[in-house]
Structure formats: structure tokens, C-alpha cells
């Protein structure tokens, strides 16, 4: 574990720390009050279910933010959806076990941490049962998924652990390196699975070739013997 005090000169840190404190609190407050900024968006139909796959190592946190907008025919533009309209979020782990299954409002944020490495599936669909709500149009969903180190809220960490700017930068580097190491462990696990699949295929092809040859020879012999006895019985041979 990197020792922050050994990295940064003491006196400079003290003066920085005094200046940082009120700044950090205001930044934290701003972060909390700040609404979700626009991100990539897509359209989803009434009963449509959109699924996204995240292949992640274990013990990795994922934070998903979404915001919905509904097309308003009168104003002919997309406006934030009504409170009654919510999205149903379902998250499945690589073994197809449901780890999160909840309904959120028209704007929501879901978090989960993976306990097994592999492909996790995040599915979203609207909970609307009244077809008139969509007015024949589509629901616009802004989605932002942050994985691992990107999911960390550094302003919060800085305020909680009372870190200066430099300490925070170093903390970010530590988190990044952690994530890289987790990914490498996952890569080792994946390579093993790939190797097992290949060896399995190799074995099956080998056995099948042998068995097929034996079956062919056996059927050939049986056919000839059977026909010979048949023709002898018919007195043609």
C-alpha cells in the first residue's frame, strides 16, 4: 500500500490542506446537488426490453445512471417523463442468477458489485401498462454505466478521508492500478476456460473419428454378412 505521507513534502501539504477544506466541502455539496448530465441515449418501445452486457472481473462495482424522456405531442419535443412511468432494472450474473431486480422511477441510479467474474447482463424495460402513455412514440432513455475505478466519486473520497489534491490524484492512480490487476486476474481465468473448451473439442473430435471408423467398419461387415446369408437363403448365390 502506497504511503502518501512519504510521497508528499510535509510543509506544502499542510498549507494545501488548509486551503482545500472549504473547497472540498463545497465541491462535495455541488456534486450531490448536481443532476445527471446528458449521456448517450437511445429509444425504447413500450414493451421492449433492452439488455446490455458488462464483462467484468469480480469485486468490481458498477454504477448505472439513467434518465427518461417522453415525447410530448403538443409541444413536439421530448420532455422529462411523468412520475408514474418507471423503469424496471434487472441484473443477472454470469450464472444467470438475478442479483438486482428493482423498479425505479423515471430517473434512477442502480449500483451493484460483482461477486463472480464474467458477463453480467443489465436489462431495462419500462413498467408502463397503459399504451396511451407512450402516445405511439418511443421513450428516450439516457444511460450512463460506470465500471470499476470510473464509478468512484473522488470528491466524496477526498472529503471523507480529508485528502489534498495530490493525495487524491495518487489515490486515483492506486484505484486504476487495482482495477488493472483485477482485470489481469480475470484474464487468467478466461484463458483457462478457453483452454478447457479447446481441449474438450480436441478430445471430442479425436474420439468421434475413432468411433466413426469403427462404426463404419462394423456396419460394412454386418451388411455384407447379412446380405450373403440373405442371398444364400434365396438360392441366388
Amino acid at each position, binding site marked *: 500500500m502506497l504511503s502518501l505521507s512519504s*510521497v*508528499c513534502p510535509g510543509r506544502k501539504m499542510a498549507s494545501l490542506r488548509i486551503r*482545500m477544506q472549504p*473547497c*472540498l466541502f463545497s*465541491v462535495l455539496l*455541488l456534486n450531490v446537488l448536481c443532476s445527471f448530465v446528458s*449521456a*448517450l*441515449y*437511445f*429509444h425504447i418501445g413500450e414493451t421492449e426490453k*433492452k*439488455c*446490455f*452486457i*458488462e*464483462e467484468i472481473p469480480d469485486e468490481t462495482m458498477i454504477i448505472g445512471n439513467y434518465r427518461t424522456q417522453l415525447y410530448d405531442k403538443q409541444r413536439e419535443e421530448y420532455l422529462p417523463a411523468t412520475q408514474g412511468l418507471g423503469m424496471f432494472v434487472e441484473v443477472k450474473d454470469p450464472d444467470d442468477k438475478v442479483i438486482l431486480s428493482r423498479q425505479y422511477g423515471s430517473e434512477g441510479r442502480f449500483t451493484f458489485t460483482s461477486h463472480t467474474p464474467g458477463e453480467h447482463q443489465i436489462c431495462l424495460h419500462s413498467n408502463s401498462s397503459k399504451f396511451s402513455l407512450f402516445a405511439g412514440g418511443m421513450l428516450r432513455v439516457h*444511460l*450512463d*454505466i460506470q465500471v470499476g475505478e470510473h464509478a468512484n466519486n*473522488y*470528491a466524496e473520497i*477526498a472529503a471523507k478521508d480529508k485528502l489534498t*489534491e*495530490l493525495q*487524491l*490524484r*495518487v489515490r*486515483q*492512480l492506486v484505484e*486504476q*492500478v487495482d*482495477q*488493472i490487476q483485477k*482485470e*489481469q486476474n*480475470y*484474464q487468467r481465468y*478466461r*484463458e483457462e476456460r*478457453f483452454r478447457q*473448451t*479447446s481441449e*474438450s*473439442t480436441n478430445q*471430442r*473430435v479425436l474420439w*468421434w473419428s475413432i*468411433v*466413426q471408423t469403427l*462404426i*463404419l467398419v462394423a*456396419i460394412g461387415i*454386418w*451388411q455384407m454378412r*447379412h*446380405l450373403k446369408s*440373405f442371398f444364400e437363403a*434365396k438360392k441366388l448365390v
Partner: protein
Amino acid sequence: MLYLSLTCLLLLNACVVSGTEITFELPDNDKQCFYEELEKDVKFDIDFQVISGGNYDVDCFVTDPHDNALYNEKKKQYDSFSHTTTMKGVYKVCFSNEFSTFTHKVVYLDFRHGNEEPILDSMKRTTALTQLESSCVAIHEILKVVADSQTWYRLREAQDRTKAEHLLERVTYWSIGETVLLFVIGIGQVMMLKSFFSDKKGSVAATT
């Protein structure tokens, strides 16, 4: 040299990008579009890869707010596309699997645009960074490249792994199918031959 590298790092800090990477499933005969609202003179990069399904290819096109095609490629397995926006508006990235009749594809998309927000507002100042801070920024950039490289290899490996698993499945089904076929044909041939001779014997007996 040191000052030059420091200023370079400072500029590098200002020019880094942030974005969204998602992996989604594209059913057969379907089209999926993603939209992003961008300002003018913003550089964006799009990276996509087909991870599984059929021939591992997909159609992709990118349009600007006036529906002009900026990028239009058919049946690509993976590609990168870069563009600097000339107007403010909604840019669209679409993937189409309409040429495929029964294979659904899994596509990975990485949409990077604009500048990365510094993790603290106090970092937005434009004064020169100290040597330690510049080192931190440099390491941060390199680690981002490492993480991107890992993602690239993870995707290639995922594609190879899906191919290997499909191969295993197909070998298994083909083995079982061929065993059944062999037995059916072997016994069937003998039965048919016997039936030919049985009829002839009957007609021969009738004529003599």
C-alpha cells in the same frame, strides 16, 4: 526540456477524453441507434467490435444533426472512426443487422467525446502543475492506455472464446447426428436391397 515536457503534460491534461462504452445485443433484422448531443468543434471517437454472432460482422453508419452520413460501412467486424464536429446538435451512431436472417449479434461500442472532467473542481485551474502533479497526470494517462489495451484484448479473447464454444457445440451435435445417420443408412440400405429381391423373386416365381 523539462518545461517543455511539463507544458506538454499540462496540455495533455486538458485534452483527455471521456465517454461511454457499452456492449449490447442486436437481434436479427434489427437496427439499433445511439444518439449523443455534442457541441461544435468537439472531437469524438467511435470504436466498435462485433463480439459474437454469425460472421461477426455488422453494418454501421454515423450521421450528423443534418442527417449527412459521416461514416457508412457495411459488414465490418471492427473499426474506429474519428471526427471533429462542425456543428452543435445530435449525432447518431447506428448498427444494423438487417442483412442477417437468424443470427443475433453482440456488439461493443466505445463512444469517446470531449474532455475528461477533472476529479476535483480545484483542478480546473490553468496555472502550471508541480512536478509531482505532472508525474501523476502522466501516470494517469499511461494507465488509461493500459486499461484500454486490456479492454481490446478482452474483446478479442471473447470473440475467440465464443467461436471455440460454438465449434465445440457443432462438433458434439454433428457427432451425434452422424452416428444416427450412419445407423439409419446402413440398416436402410440392407432393407431396400432385400425388398428389391423379394419382389423379383415373386415375379420370377409367377412367370415360371
